[in-house]
Structure formats: C-alpha cells, structure tokens
C-alpha cells in the first residue's frame, strides 16, 4: 500500500492494511514487547517531571499555599488554571469514544483507546489540583456529602461540591468505559503472553474473558450503556466546572454562556491533545496504516469546528459585556483584557485560539503531521492562557479599584504545571507499554467489516 496521501484522503479509508487477523494482532501487540530506547529515555524524562510534581506537592502541603504566587484578590490562579486545563483535555477521549460510538462513526476505533487513556490521566491530573489548592487539604473530604457525626453537610449552593461530584462521576464512568473496552484485548495479551508471570497478571485483569458469544453479547450491552452514560457527562462535567465561575458575581466570571463555552473550549484543547499524542505514536510505532491520514484529517476538522464555536463564544462575551452597559464587566472585557497590563497574554491567546487554527482550512496543513503537531501545541498553550486570563485576569480587576492587584507565579506554581505534564506523559508512556493502545478486537471487526463491504 503505497498510494499517495492526496489520493487516500479522497476515499474514506480508516484501515489501510492487508494483514489477516493474526498478523493484525501481532502487529498491534508489538509495542508491548518493544524494548525501545526512546521509550526509556522519555520515561526517564517524564519520571523526573513526576518527581518534581511530588516534591513540590509535598512542599506545598508542608509549607502552605503561600509558596505559590496567589494573593488577595487573585486567590485562584495557576492551580485552578491547571485544573481547568487538564479537565478540558480530559474531554476529547470520552467524546471520541462514546459520542462517536453512538453516532456509529467507525473511524473512531483506532484512536479511541488512546483518547480514553488520555482522558483518564488528564482527569486524574486535574483532580489533584483542587485538593492541592486547598488551604487545609487534609479536610478535602468535607466537600463530600458523607454522614458526619456532627450532621454537617456540604453547602449545596456552592458549585464546588457539584464539581467534586461531577469529576468523580466522570472519572468513574470514563474508567469503567475504558476498562470494559479493554477486557477482550487484555485477554488477547494474556493468550499471547510468553511468560507465566505475564499470563498471570494479564489473566487477572482480563477478568476471565473467553470470547464466548455470551461474553460478547454482555460486552456489547454494557459498552453501549456506558457510552450512553458517558456522553451526557462530557457535556455536564465541564458545564459544572464552568459554574465554579459562572455562579459568582465577579465581572469576567458572571456569565450564562460559560457552560457551552467551556465545553467547546474543553473539546478544542482535548482534540489538540489527541493530536499531540497520536502523531508521534503513529510515527514511532509505524501505525500509519491503522491510524490513517483520514483519522488525522477528521480530528483536524473537529479542531477547526471547535475553534469557531470558541470564536462565537468570545464574540458573544464581548458583545454582551458592551451591551449590558455594566461598567465593571465593560472594564474587564473592553479594557483590562485587551489593553491592561496582561494584554500580551490576551493577544497571545487570540493568536493561538482564533487565528492559528484557521490554518486548518488548508488541506495541506491538515495532512502535514509536523504542522499539525506544532499547531496542537499552540492551541493547548492558547487554551491554558484563556483559562488563566479568565481566572486570574478577572480577579485582578474586580469592583473596587483599590483592591486591584497583579499576580506573579512563583517557581512552585511553574513546577507544579511542568510536573503535572511530566506526570501525564509518564502515565501515558506506561499505558503505551503495558496496555494494547489500539483496540485489537475492534480493529479486527473493522477489518472484516471493510472486507465484507469491499
């Protein structure tokens, strides 16, 4: 198969191989056996990031939030930005797998597991920040409605308990969905294992899967149900996160457009992260025939669509700020952000989220892995900026000019962000090495489907 990319894109090819089932299985299991030096090098590098994250977390626990740059009025800054950023990244996975499954988009099969793993890791990462961010993190469980002997409940008017519940639910359902999809493949790894130890370990995780028709019947039902359950969560979790801001009366936060706006932004950054991960994986493991240009193109188009949803939200925000006539809101949107001391941040964000994605109108850009990879990084950077501008920027210019203040992150803030990226990559590398990251069973089914159709 050596047809040129330009030709391939015209026909919706989602699997571009002549392998039979056994060859395909071997091929997809190969990464689990690889002893790649690159992998070890990357693992060491991201492992250093994990250590940085753990060390700075402990430092924060012991020393206090004062080690960060937060202040009054900017009581939330880096950590909450990181939280929203990671939770946003954690959106594309479930969207790709569950949403597209329900819409019967076959092309999702080869990318869904990577996207789901990304989701899980990102949501886990995200969930660390709100806890770390508490003044007294050892009492984080007070946000849970547990039956306390003092009969004290969380305050349900606050968005934070909703948040707590939404993230926990999302993580649980995403995990179950991911794991359910993984069971047949874990059984395959078990069956193909060379060593007894490997067989034992994968055997435990495969939950006794034998591939019987009954198993497959139950599997389909559960998988479909979980997909149905996960789909609204994609919408709900970031809507709830956005309410952390929208329920307040702070100019720049107090906005009814926030839920859809945040979901669009989340998908935008999530798809960008899928590209960031998928493109190198495809290249390194030579999976161009499994993850075809058709996939990449589809994801790039999704990015473009999301960027326009975001642009719509930006315009709406600006228009409403002007239209309300509210002096505080007008100041934040029309003066502080575009012209204030952090204007460079704002315009960087506009470049990254509004202008740069328009390159995707060009097919050549959509088909250039290098350009897409670079663009995906720019977008993620831009989305981080956006959250930072919303969170810290709004807080720094609120109602009383006397309390206005700027914010400057410390090395601890930066280390936690860098460390969390390390943590994310570390977990992702382990995932690549120990779990079949392309769904083998689904690919085989897809192969037969395509064959049958052909």
């Amino acid at each position, binding site marked *: 198969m050596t047809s040129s990319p330009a030709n391939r894109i015209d026909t919706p090819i989602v699997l571009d191989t002549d392998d039979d089932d056994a060859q395909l299985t071997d091929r997809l299991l190969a990464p689990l056996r690889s002893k790649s030096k690159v992998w070890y090098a990357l693992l060491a590098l991201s492992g250093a990031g994990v250590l940085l994250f753990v060390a700075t977390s402990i430092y924060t626990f012991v020393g*206090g939030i004062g080690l960060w740059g937060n202040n009054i009025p900017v009581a939330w800054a880096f950590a909450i930005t990181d939280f929203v950023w990671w939770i946003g990244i954690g959106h594309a996975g479930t969207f790709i797998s569950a949403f597209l499954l329900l819409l019967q988009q076959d092309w999702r099969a080869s990318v869904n597991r990577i996207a789901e793993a990304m989701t899980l890791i990102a949501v886990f990462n995200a969930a660390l920040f709100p806890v770390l961010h508490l003044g007294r993190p050892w009492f984080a469980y007070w946000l849970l409605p547990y039956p306390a002997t003092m009969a004290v409940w969380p305050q349900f008017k606050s968005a934070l308990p909703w948040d707590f519940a939404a993230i926990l639910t999302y993580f649980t359902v995403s995990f179950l969905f991911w794991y359910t999809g993984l069971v047949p493949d874990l059984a395959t790894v078990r069956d193909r294992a060379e060593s007894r130890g490997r067989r034992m370990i994968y055997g435990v995780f495969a939950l006794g899967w034998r591939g019987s028709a009954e198993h497959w019947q139950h599997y389909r039902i559960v998988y479909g149900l979980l997909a149905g359950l996960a789909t609204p969560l994609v919408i709900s979790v970031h809507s709830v996160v956005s309410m952390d801001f929208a329920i307040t009366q702070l100019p720049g936060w107090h906005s009814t457009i926030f839920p859809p706006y945040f979901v669009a932004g989340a998908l935008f950054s999530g798809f960008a992260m899928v590209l960031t991960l998928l493109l190198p994986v495809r290249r390194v493991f030579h999976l161009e025939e499994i993850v075809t240009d058709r996939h990449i193109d589809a994801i790039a188009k999704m990015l473009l669509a999301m960027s326009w949803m975001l642009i719509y939200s930006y315009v709406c925000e600006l228009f409403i700020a002007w239209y309300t006539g509210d002096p505080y809101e007008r100041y934040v949107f029309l003066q502080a952000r575009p012209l204030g001391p952090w204007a460079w941040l704002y315009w960087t964000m506009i470049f990254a989220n509004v202008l740069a994605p328009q390159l995707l109108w060009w097919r050549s850009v959509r088909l250039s892995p290098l350009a897409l990879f670079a663009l995906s990084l720019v977008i993620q950077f831009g989305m981080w900026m956006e959250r930072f501008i919303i969170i810290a920027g709004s807080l720094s210019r609120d109602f009383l000019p006397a309390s206005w203040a700027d914010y400057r992150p410390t090395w601890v803030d930066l280390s936690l962000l860098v460390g969390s990226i390390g943590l994310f990559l570390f977990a992702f590398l382990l995932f690549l090495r120990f779990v079949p990251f392309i769904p083998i069973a689904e690919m085989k089914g897809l192969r037969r489907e395509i064959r049958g159709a052909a």
Partner: protein
Amino acid sequence: MTGSRQPLVHSAVDDAGSVTRRDFLRVIGSGVAVAGLGACIEPPRERILPYTARPPEITPGIATYYATTMTLGGFGTGLVVECREGRPTKVEGNQHHPASLGAAGVFEQASVLELYDPDRVRTPRQRGGVGGWDAFVSDFALTPASGGTEQGRGLHFLLEPTASPLTLSLIDRIRALHPAVGFTFYSPLAFTGAMEGARAAFGRPLQPIYDLSRAAVIVSLDADVLDAHPFCLRYARQFADGRRLRTRRDGMNRLYVVESAFTTTGGMADHRLALRAGDVADVATALLAATATPEEVRPLIPLLSRAQSEGPATSWVRAAAADLRAARGQSVVIAGAEQPAAVHAIANALNAILGSIGTTVRFIEPLLPAEAPEHALTALAAAIDARAVDKLIILGGNPSCTAPADLRFSERIRNVRSKAYLGLYHNETALDCSWVLPGLHYLESWGDARACDGTASFVQPLIRPLYDGRSVDEVLAVCGGLPTTSAHALVRELWSTQPDFQALWARSLERGVIENTASPPVSAALDWAGVLPVLAAERQRAARDSIEVTFRLDPKTLDGRFANNPWLQELPHPITKLTWGNAALLGPETAKRLGIETGDEVSIAFGGGRISIPAIVVPGHAESSITLPLGYGRSGEERVARDVGVNVYPIRTRGAPFIIPDAVVRGVKTGSSEPLATTQGHFTMEGRAIAREGTLAAYRADPRTIVPPHEIAPSLYEPVAQSGDQWAMTIDLSVCTGCSACVIACQAENNIPVVGREGVLKRREMHWLRIDRYYTGPAENPRVISQPMACQHCEKAPCEYVCPVNATVHSPDGLNEMVYNRCVGTRFCSNNCPYKVRRFNWFDYSFGVPAVLWMQRNPDVTVRERGVMEKCTYCVQRIRRAGIQAATERRALRDGEVVTACQQACPTRAITFGSLDDVDSEVSRSRRQERSYAVLGELGTEPRTRYLARIFNPSPDLTV
C-alpha cells in the same frame, strides 16, 4: 525560689524569647500583684501567686482596665489599657484626658506590641565588662553625702524634652545638689518654631492651644494638626464635631490648607493649596496682607507686597482672607511645626487681628524647653570636644541616628570616656555606648506626664517589668544621688504636697487625669516690633527655582523610634499606602523634570551627605519640592527595623533641619529598582461611585445628586431569618481623616498577624480593616478621600453561598460569621467578595512569632491557623461580652453598649455601630440620613455597613 532581694525581678523571658510555664505564671502573678495592689512596686519576694488565691478584682476571662499615660514628644496622652489575666493586651483612649477624649492614635494603639518586643534590652550590660545595675551605679552615680559644687562635673545627661513634672523636678533637685551636672534635651520630635513665633509676636515664648470646635474657618499653614501634633486626637475630634452633619441644615466648618506634601489634614481640606514648604511664608504674608486692614498692619506695609500674579495661590489667599474676615473670632490660623518663626508670627498676628485669641486659640507658658533641640545638642557637642564631659548618660531617644548629620554625634559619643544608654532597644546610640541599660516601657513604669495643655496625669504600670529595667526617672534619681530611687515613691513624694493627697492619688489613678492641672491661659498682646525683624529676615531669602527638600516625621515610625514595631511598619501610609519603608514624595511635574517615575530613585546631596531613595510620584504634591520621611534605614540591632527603608538623616543638618532650599537633586532611572511594598496600586475610582462625595451646597439643594436612593435588588436567595439585635455600622466619610488608628486598633483587638515586606509585595496583608484611598477632583489639584473598608456583613452575602463547606454563615443577628474550624481554604469566598475584604492565612503567620508576643493576644479571639480565611467580625467578641453582661442583668442591650475596636479608637468618631432593631439607635438614625449609601449597593448584597457620603464645604468664591 530565690529569696534574695534584687533591684528588680529576673526576666521571665529568656534570651531566645520563649517563656517557660513557671516563669509565665510568675509574670502573670506579679503583674496581677502590681495591677491589683497598685501601690506595691517594690517586690516583696519572688513567689508564684497561684490562681486559687486570686486577687479579688481579677476573674479569669474578665478583662480589667487601668488608666495610664503614654508620653510622646514630651507630652502625655491619657489611656485606658485592657489587662487580661495580668497581661496588658489592648490600649484604648481615656475619655477624661484632654489629649485623648476617648480616642487612641496609631502610636498609642501599637505601643502595646512594643512592650512585648523580643528585641528589647533585657539586662544592664557593659561592653566587654561586667553587667548589672550595681556596677553601673558604682561607675556613674553621684553620692548624696559627698556633696560639694564640684561634684558631678563631667557628668552629663542627654534626655528627650519632656513636660513630666517628676522628671523636671528630679532635674531641678539634682541641679540644686550638684550644679555642675549638665543636662541637654534633644529630640527630632521637639519643635520650637511656635515658641519663637510667639516670642516675635508677643515678646516671649508661648505655646498655643487651639479650640477647633469653636472655629468656623480654619487655615492651616503647613500644619498637620489632625495627625501630627501632640494634641492631634483632640483637634481631630474638635474638627470633626464642627463638620459632622446630622441633617442637611447643619453647618460645617471650612478648612483651608497650604502644604507641600499631602497630609491627612490636607486630605480633609476644602481648599488645599500645594506649595513648596519654603513658599508657605510668602502665602502667609499675602494672607496677612489680604485679611488685615491697612490700619491693622500699618507697621508692616513696606514688607507686604500684594501677590503679583493671578494664580491658584492668589485665589486661595483671597478666598481664605474673605472667610477669615467674615468669621472674626470664629476663625483660627495655625502654622506648621516645621515652619520658621516668621510663619508662626504671622499666624499669631492674624489670630490677634481677627480676635481669635481667647476664643479659638489661647496661649500658655511653654511646657517644653524653648531652645531649639539642634542648638542644645551643638552645645553638648562643644562640651564633649572640650573634654568637659567624661560621663554621658543618654536617657532614651536615639541621638546617634537622629542628631543633625553635621554634628557627627555618633563619633562624639564614642569619644566620651564613659557613656551609658538607657532605652528599650539596642539601637544606634546603644551601639555607641559602653553601657546599655534596659529601659522601662510606660506600661511597666510609674511616673507622670503633662498633656499639651498642661493637664497632668500619672503613668501607672499594668505589669511588673518583663526585664531588669529602670525608668528614666529612676536612673536620674540614682545617678543624681537622690535618696529615693523608686519611681513609685518618687512620684508619690512629688505629688504628696498637694492637699488631700491620698484622695487625689486614688482618684487620679482611677480617672487617669489629675484634675485642675491644665495650664492657665496667659495674656498675649501683639507687638509688631518683634514681628518685623523675623518677617524681614524671611524676605531676605532669594527667589529660588531649585528643588527644595523637606523632612517630615513619618506617620508610622516618627523619627524612627517605632521602626521596630511590625504593626506600624506594616501600616499603610495614609496617602501613599506604602508599608515597610519610606520613599521620597514628589509631584508629577517634578518627576518629569527629574526624568523619573514611581519606583526610580532620587539621589540627594547636601551638607556633605548623600542619600539615594526610591521615589513615589504623588499627584497633589507641591512641585519643585521633595518630601523625605524620617525614621527608616535604621542600623541598630533591632531585627524588624534594621535596613527597612532609607535613612535620610545623613543630609539633615543643623542649618536646615526641616527644609533644604537648595539641595543637589538628581533623578536615577533604576529600571529594576527595589519594588515598593504598597497595599494599593490604583488610586482612581474609574468613574465608579464607590467613595461618594459632594459639596454642602449640592447636598442642601438635592442630596440625590450625591447619593441616589437605595434600591433593593431582586434576589433568588431566601432572606436569612433575623431575630434580636441587628448589627450594623455606618462610616461617615465626611469626618474620616484616614489616620489609620482604626487599622491598628483592629489588629491589636483581633490578633491579626503581620506578613512582612515580602507578604505585602505579594499583596497578602492581613488587615481586616483597610483604608482605601482615592483621588477625586481635578488632576492638577486633586482631593483625596479615604474609605475604611472591612467586611460589609452583607445580608445577601456573596461569600456565603459559594463556600462548599458552610464555613461562612449568617447569624440571626445579622453577622456574616466565619467558622475557622470548618474552613478548608478554597478561597472561593474571597473571589466572590466584591469588597475583597477577606484575608487568607497563606502561611502559619501566627505561630511562628517569638513566644513573648503571644502575651499581647486577645484571649477572646481565635488565633487562626494556616490555610483558613478570616475577616472582620464586627468584633463579635465584644458583642457577645456585652450580650452576656446584659443577659446576667436581665435586660436588653442598650444602644452604644457595644463598641467595636475601630469605633473606639477613631479620633473623629466617624464610625457608628449599633442595632437596627432599635429604630432610634444612633446607627439607625445615621442610616436614615440622605447621604447614607451602600458601596456597590447595585449588586444587591445589602451590606450592613453603610457609608455617609463625604460632604465638603468649599467657598462659593472658589471653583473646586
């Protein structure tokens, strides 16, 4: 338990600053003994007084209060100090004392922290030699027996000028016994311009006392009478009383101020004229010319030239003159302490011409030496050079740091053979001396003092000395060879000549004032003969175009004496909001001329010295003038004070102690200079109606132009159930001067930690009550408006519904309560607080401080741990204490029974607190005023703190 009889008890606090339990009990016990038994200063034996046999008037948990007097700048201010289980914890004003009238300023409020300062001198020590009081006494003291006029030659005392009858009598007694002993008085807080001005106008030095409550028109010639004057608390109250509006028909006084730097007095002005301090004399002359009829000033005619050009100064002078003439006998002209004799002479002349003497101003015999302190110190320096001083005892002050630079006094002290320093700190002077002796804080010593008007009062200790210290009077008595050496005995001895002494003693200690001791007014008749030469001398000054440099006592550290007090260091400057340091203040045009901006440095050379200091551009500062606050850049061993800010004393000389007309000033673009730790960075309101203001005329015509009617915004949330008293506060912006006494009072009452310079730079100051300061009016001549801002106790509190754990909730009596135990520290409440008055414990601020400082803490207020939010509680501990008292007496709370700490400290009574449940309470009535409004009321937060819009009273002849 040692049975030895020592001069004073061992210190209860070891050098590391920690307190052992046993020592702590002993200090408490002995403190109780002193506070309770009053008369017994001489410790009988050291023994622990267990609380099983507690003194009858002490109930654990119930505060006791004692009157005492704090002396500053030689004059006393009467105070009532709260004592908790033997520890003084909070200073309040004494309503019976003329200098306090119930209020206490920032220095009085912060002085309680100084008592527990871990950097205090603890034991008498000789550098490189033995220590102990006995060794000191044998080295320095005269003996009464040997007598003889020659005895004492070579012994010299250097003191701060004081009006204390005891100190002055001791000096007289020593002088009588040993005429050769020398005494010198020096302090940068002593100003003699007023006395010289009186000498010029009336033929002899006199001290003016004003009565601003009777003044309809007040003209300040560079006089910061509302904040920097020994009587400022009284003057601020009188000024406010003449300005307080209860109805639209009430009258208001009118304040004209000419000054160089913005002061709190200038901030209150109806008409402020920003002018170089050196040019104030010209304005004063013009004012005299414009106010008096030619007949009244006939001898002066050749000296008075009408202002040549039309300008802001001319119209200011014209309006002020018209008002002064119209308010004959009800006006007062006040000259600033730093101003030369000529300005004081003109002020005296104006007051005499306008018939104000006897109504708004009276004169008394001076209570402090009329000799300029710089002059006195020069004489001492000459004596040292002549080897006429071989034993120098410095009692307080810090002359090594504060003496005029050209005297090189530090070197001269070191040239004296034996020199001893008695004081609270190892400051620059202590480092120059061979002996360092622990002084006593006023809260642990006996003594007496006179207020500015002569009213005497006793200094009564509230606690046994923490360390092995002696008071100034005690050291004077010992070294002067007097038979009695205990301050308690000395002060009783002095006053025992009064009739019915026992009753007077008891009554005066209880009330804090010795009745009928105010100085009688003396007659003062204007005599032009003396005025002419000083005016002529003043006119000799050549016209200048150079940039003048003026020195000012810092409103937080004064001359540097309070530089080791972290509360004061962290108190934002009333105008610049600068903490932890000083800066050169200058106007925008001058900054442009020097090519600098805020944060850059100015380099100033004068008299052989040179300093480099960061600059702050202050709109409204006089152009071609730079103000340098004294009191920073200290180089003693005090850990808090050391190296904070810039020491400007190196260019302050005898010839120009207040104003340098022609220093060499250079702007230095530092680029990445040391950032200035300010608590406010934005001083305009951006067109938002936050601190509302308007003129009296507009208020009378239609108050709605200033304060539109309050509308209750619709809300989704149910109202909180209300029962019982409904607490509320009103702050009158018309009389708030921004002096910040409330800020320190709040800090002392509520165990509020300091965060240090780094913390302020990160904007993490913990003050529950802050004072927002905005510019209003035209940019070229702005007004300032100060707005105290603390938790507004919103009825629809935005902080409450966002807290995920119910840690901030509403009480039935209308308080927005903070439950520290429940707080997990999400800081969501702060984000949703439109007033940004919530504070977060970013670090463990409260527990990391030296243990001795714990003794200051208010046991009724929780000390907050790391990671929790905190904020103003409306002093809930005071509300509950009063409520319990009322409940035990089976009655309802009375209006005015609950007084918050900020309200109690406020010199102008700008703060009203009470219950809305009582429609006749003062706070209910104030809320019904047409200028009452809620800040950000349009958000629907329904705050319980309301503000009364600032009404000012400009002359109809002048545009504002």
